């Protein structure tokens, strides 16, 4: 069952936003993309704060905007977590939630509890931190409606706050709700979303499971931000990509000429000694230059030519004894490099 379906276009300044979004009951959908790509604008059309030019917005069984008639924002039965908390002036935390709660005091208390805010119920906004205010805004939305549109709901959160917000959103979906999360942070999408829609330059460029984006990125932004290493260069007739620094053997699907390769972190394996029996066509030496925790383990950046990023579990990092400065070998199968012809060399 589809709970929200948004297809069509809307005006954003003097440009046109093209929308293509579906989210079902029980689902968390992430909208990711760079700043100014049209993520928040997409939400504002769903919310009724911006009109559709053509197409349709359906919420439940009701078409709320078909480009000609649009129902007003207060008649759409939605819940919204805006980028800024936008709390009501001077009201205590519980009174921020109760006026909008479907189940009054009970629903409001439950929503606050789901974010660990029960102890702050009688505090006024001025005494809250930015992260706490944002969690009040999340609770307010969860108490309001099944369909929750959340715009960067973890932007003001520390690690614990991020966990609290994302697990509250997940539980909302688990209880039959629908959650759309806008984020510029693919890790957040990875952590919370069942499906991801990538919006760039006011249009959807890719969709799928967050973990699958890096394997076949449709754009440099996806490649870089989903964690993949991006290498540009020229492919010769023996399927070798010559980059500014180093070479890579790539698949034979790509004709000779300018090309761009994306190597997902999961496609890169690391070894302490030169592997002798690997089937990988690319065996490169280097040393560890950075170790960064990620949603699913550790991202290890190695100073091979070209530079690669490998996704390892914490256990693997420990087993290999990897630290910054450790010498190692990286292997990548040619078939696991996503390589595409570039229209023209840049």
């Amino acid at each position, binding site marked *: 069952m589809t709970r929200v379906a948004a297809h069509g276009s809307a005006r954003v300044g003097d440009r046109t936003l093209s929308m293509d979004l579906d989210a079902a009951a029980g689902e968390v959908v992430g909208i990711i993309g760079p700043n100014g790509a049209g993520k928040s604008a997409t939400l504002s059309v769903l*919310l*009724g*704060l911006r009109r559709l030019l053509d197409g349709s917005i359906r919420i439940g069984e009701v078409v709320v905007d078909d480009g000609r008639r649009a129902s*007003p*924002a*207060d*008649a*759409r*039965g*939605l*819940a*919204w977590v*805006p980028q*800024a908390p*936008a*709390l*009501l*002036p*001077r*009201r205590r935390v519980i009174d921020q939630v109760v*006026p*909008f709660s479907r189940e009054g005091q009970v629903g409001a208390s439950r929503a606050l509890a789901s974010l660990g805010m029960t102890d702050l119920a009688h505090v006024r906004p001025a005494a809250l931190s930015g992260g706490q205010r944002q969690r009040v*805004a999340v609770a*307010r*939305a969860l108490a*309001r*409606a099944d369909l929750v549109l959340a715009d960067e709901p973890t932007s003001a959160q520390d690690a614990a706050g991020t966990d609290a917000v994302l697990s509250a959103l997940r539980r909302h979906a688990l209880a039959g709700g629908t959650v759309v999360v806008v984020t510029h942070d693919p890790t957040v999408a990875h952590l919370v979303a069942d499906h991801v829609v990538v919006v760039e330059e006011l249009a959807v460029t890719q969709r799928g499971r967050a973990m699958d984006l890096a394997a076949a990125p449709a754009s440099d932004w996806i490649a870089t931000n989903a964690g993949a290493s991006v290498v540009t260069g020229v492919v010769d007739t023996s399927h070798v990509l010559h980059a500014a620094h180093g070479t890579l053997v790539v698949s034979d699907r790509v004709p000779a000429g300018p090309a761009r390769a994306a190597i997902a972190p999961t496609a890169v394996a690391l070894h302490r000694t030169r592997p002798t029996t690997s089937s990988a066509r690319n065996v490169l030496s280097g040393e560890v230059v950075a170790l960064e925790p990620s949603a699913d383990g550790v991202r290890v950046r190695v100073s091979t030519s070209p530079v690669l990023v490998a996704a390892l579990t914490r256990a693997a990092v420990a087993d290999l004894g990897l630290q910054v400065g450790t010498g190692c070998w990286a292997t990548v199968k040619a078939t696991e490099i996503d390589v595409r012809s570039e229209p023209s060399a840049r």
Partner: protein
Amino acid sequence: MSRDRDDQPRLALPRTVVVLALAGGALLLGPLVALAVRGGLSGLPDALSNPGVRTALRVTAVTSVQATLIAVLLGVPLALVADRTTGPIARFAGLVGEVPLVVPPVVTGLGLLLLLGRNGLMGGLLDAAELRLTFTAAAVVIAQASAATPLVIVATRAGLRTLDPLPEQVAAVHGAGPWARLRLAVLPGVSGAIALGAALGWGRAAGEFGATLTFAGSLPGRTRTLPLEVFATLELDRAAAAAAALLQVLVAVAVLMVGRRLSRARA
């Protein structure tokens, strides 16, 4: 936010600016000092026990409070409408709200007389309803309200201009209708500005002179407010007038301080 500013060291201004500021202070403060020194302060106890002054004070209190309530009741909606409207109508509404600030009160009073007076535009209508406004306390209230309303409008609009629109949008998305949005998000957000406008308007109403004299006259016990009492006493006893005038100043300062306290507390 103001606390952050207070914590920072202030950089010096050019000396000329400081001198001009002092001159400005002297211009504003000088007359008050003169009032106090030339009979005002010593005559204050007498003024307070003078039946004419006491009556005028009572008339002023009763009429100016009513005028302020009317100014808020009408000025805030006008500011809200002007804030939501765009184009020539909005500009016209803004002008209508601010014209009385720059038009001499006697002109406003004459206008009221020609509108609501015996032979005024609406005189026939008022006669039919057996309402006579001229030279009544109601006329004083109308004259004061017409002076106070623009101040409420200007202050409220200033508050609305800096109001974050997001809480109201959130309220709308979460199902709140127009009244609920006003109650939950908009009015609490500008209550400080409204309080300041009401205080300024109240002070203005209590000091209204020109429009009141023209439209309501100066009947002791009915339409003679404190400023009219000052003017009436001036011919007879300058020191007594100074005392009554000083009383007027004290009332105005008290009203202003209450208003500023309210507006800070709400900010």
